[in-house]
């Protein structure tokens, strides 16, 4: 992000790629553990962390491409969920616009955790309502897919995002 507007740096490009690959790896570990009509995804913490530490643009692309890659590896394609996971990364990164990735105070960690919870619900419900618009019954799209997905992602984001940010702060100081 430059002074004269948005400019994607080389580091942003690489972080997006590695973030996406890492999400796909961790998602594959728990792919076969079902929760209602979804898979369990502690990997969502990778997306929320990349958003919070490197910006909403990195979070969005890492989440969207990571989920696309994960879908693709298993022979699926749910574009609305790819965008939904991207939204989770995007919202998680909103506090970055204020602190530019410097997590020093308690409020920074609290905001990262809160935004990852909000992002989980917005992202999953976005995907759920797109599914409804595409003809999936409301009960299936919202009760079986969006809500369990959002609730579990919110828990993972709430617990794991601040822990990863704390470790990253220590890593930066080395």
């Amino acid at each position, binding site marked *: 992000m430059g002074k004269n507007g948005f400019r994607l740096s080389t580091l942003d490009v690489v972080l997006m*790629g590695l973030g996406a690959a890492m999400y796909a790896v961790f998602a594959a570990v728990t792919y*076969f553990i*079902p929760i209602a009509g979804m898979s369990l995804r502690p990997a969502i913490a990778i997306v929320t962390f990349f958003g919070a530490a490197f910006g909403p643009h990195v979070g969005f692309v890492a989440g969207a491409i990571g989920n696309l890659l994960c879908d693709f590896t298993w022979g699926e394609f749910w574009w609305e969920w790819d965008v939904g996971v991207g939204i989770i990364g995007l919202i998680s990164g909103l506090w970055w616009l204020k602190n530019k990735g410097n997590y020093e105070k308690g409020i920074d960690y609290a905001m990262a955790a809160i935004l990852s919870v909000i992002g989980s619900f917005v992202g999953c419900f976005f995907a759920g309502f797109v599914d409804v618009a595409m003809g999936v019954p409301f009960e299936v799209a919202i009760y079986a897919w969006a809500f369990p997905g959002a609730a579990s992602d919110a828990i993972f984001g709430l617990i*794991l995002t601040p*822990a*990863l940010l704390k470790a990253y702060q220590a890593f930066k100081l080395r």
Partner: protein
Amino acid sequence: MLVSFKYIHGDSLIHRLDVRTKLFMVFAYLVMALSLLDMRVLAILFVSSAMLWPLAKTPMKEVGKLLIPMLIFIAFFSFATNAFYPGIAGKPYHIVYQWGWIKISLEALIYSATVALRYLAIFPAATVFIMTTHPTKMSVALAKLKIPYKLAYVMNIALRYLPTLALDYEIIKNAQRARGFEMDRPQGGLVGRLKAALPVMIPMVMDSINRAELIADAMDLRCFGVYKDRTWYHDLKFTKTDYIVCTILLIGVITCILLRLFVLKRLWVPV
């Protein structure tokens, strides 16, 4: 299991296809499978898709390792999501089992099986694409499809580092196990289980950030992103085979859409 789906160098018919043709192939199978609600046509689609494995000379041992858990997961996912919603395929429906408020209709069972077959029909095409497409050529193909090259590079990096990170995951997990961390049956409920993920997640994330800085420095030194457009070391060219494959796929897609619109409008129920 994590490193099973990666590029495997080879010289098969599928390897020689242009990456754009292979992308279109996956897209075509997606459209064909998602446009149909008929198990008979989906079964034909699955067989044609599975034929890609021998055509790509894919090691069947690798595919077989994943196919069985995939089948179990697809069956569970499809039935858990759809079978308990009797009217999912429309009305009228016939209840075959009822226990309290749980109702299962014949149509919902058929619908669940149809959805499972849909996933199965796409699975071989997607795995063949991953296993026969070099990540570098993937970014060239995306750039040729007018996708900004920085985004194409994101995909390139993600595909390139997927097997490396999967290997890192296994190494870090085994290293933590050797240090006495309980990785398989962690104590302390949900929070304890989540915390058990951190000894693997944290080193892997920090190592990746370190790696990202090195890669970005190397790319900057080679002037990545200085110009709006760029050239590529590899070039892609459509051959006669690509045109033939694309034509066959296009005919398949149009046929499936026409079938759905005029012939197979509803779910096929074999009664």
